[in-house]
């Protein structure tokens, strides 16, 4: 068996947390096996198949957590298509299209660049260096963030009013950074949200809503690999890993939505810079 149940559980727990915390799940899933001496590499077919299951679990948790929001957003999208335009007071429709506009560049860049970038940046050392840089990216977003007045009481109305089409496109495109192990998808979207004037809580909400279709679609696209011959010997640990990822993803999203009501990205920036620097040094000297 290329991956044990214990390894599957541990990697699943890590994946659920690190996918939603702005600390790079891919980076951690590259660094951890190297740190503990496991023979698991991010380009191993069985490992990619394993990640499909944990990503799918994370996407399902996000979808369920924000199910009421998604239902309102989908109804808003339907209304706007029917009316062939977005009514000025229809925040759900505008938010829905902002998510579409952000998802298109992220999806296309992901489809076209994922395999190439994974092949180039496969080593644990490069993941540690990029994790270090991710810390600076998060801290930079904090330093440069715009403090726009938050007049509206409703979260989605605030986001819909604050984010422009261009900003949604750029924030979505920034998610492509997460294709490089060490850079965080949620970090890029939260940082982008802060730069366009969202509060921390709204930036986190926008990031999680934007992450759901991307993580889910990426997992569904690779689902045949889990069902096919490359899934042999991995399905059991992958199921355990998915379950563990679902539990920690749920706890993570609950925690983060409360955390960002009063806190900033700075603790994550310090963690990424510190952990990235320590791991890079260790890998370089080992």
């Amino acid at each position, binding site marked *: 068996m290329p991956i044990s149940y214990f390894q599957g559980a541990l990697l699943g727990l890590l994946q659920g947390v690190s996918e939603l915390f702005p600390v790079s799940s891919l980076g951690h899933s590259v660094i951890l096996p190297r740190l503990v001496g496991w023979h698991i590499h991010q380009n191993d077919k069985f490992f990619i198949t394993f990640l499909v299951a944990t990503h799918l679990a994370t996407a399902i948790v996000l979808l369920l957590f924000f199910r009421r929001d998604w239902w309102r957003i989908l109804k808003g999208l339907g209304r*706007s*298509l029917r*009316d*062939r*335009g*977005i*009514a*000025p007071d229809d925040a759900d429709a*505008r938010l829905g*299209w*902002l998510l*579409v*506009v952000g998802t*298109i560049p992220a*999806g*296309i860049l992901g*489809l*076209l660049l994922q395999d190439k970038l994974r092949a180039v940046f496969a080593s644990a050392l490069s993941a540690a260096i990029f994790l270090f840089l991710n810390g600076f990216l998060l801290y930079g977003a904090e330093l440069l963030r715009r403090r726009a007045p938050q007049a509206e009481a409703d979260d989605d109305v605030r986001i819909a009013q604050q984010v422009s*089409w261009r900003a949604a496109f750029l924030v979505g495109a920034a998610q492509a950074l997460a294709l490089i192990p060490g850079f965080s998808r949620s970090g890029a979207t939260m940082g982008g949200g802060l730069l366009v004037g969202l509060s921390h809580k709204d930036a986190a909400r926008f990031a999680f809503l934007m992450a759901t279709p991307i993580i889910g679609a990426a997992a569904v*696209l690779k689902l045949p690999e889990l069902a096919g011959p490359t899934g042999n010997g991995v399905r059991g640990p992958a199921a355990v890993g998915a379950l563990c990822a679902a539990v920690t993803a749920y706890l993570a999203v609950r925690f983060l939505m409360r955390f960002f009501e009063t806190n900033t990205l700075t603790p994550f920036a310090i963690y990424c810079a510190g952990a990235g620097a320590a791991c890079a040094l260790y890998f370089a000297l080992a």
Partner: protein
Amino acid sequence: MDRRRLLVLAAIVAGIVLIAIAAVYWAEPAKSLPSFFPGHQAGSGHHHVKHGIASFLVGLACLVFAWFNTGQKKTPSAPA
């Protein structure tokens, strides 16, 4: 023809062409793709499914853009 109509026409044409290209990517292996297509590779039987999805998504976005921009003018804002 004003600028808006021209843009809508271009979006419709681009949308249809891109969705047709997506169908070609899904139906034909890399060796049978036209040589100017990204992903063409002589002798390869690989299907570029992801290229097809990317092309389809952009095509769909073009058609949605055209759909919004051909609606009645009572709706003041539209995506993109």
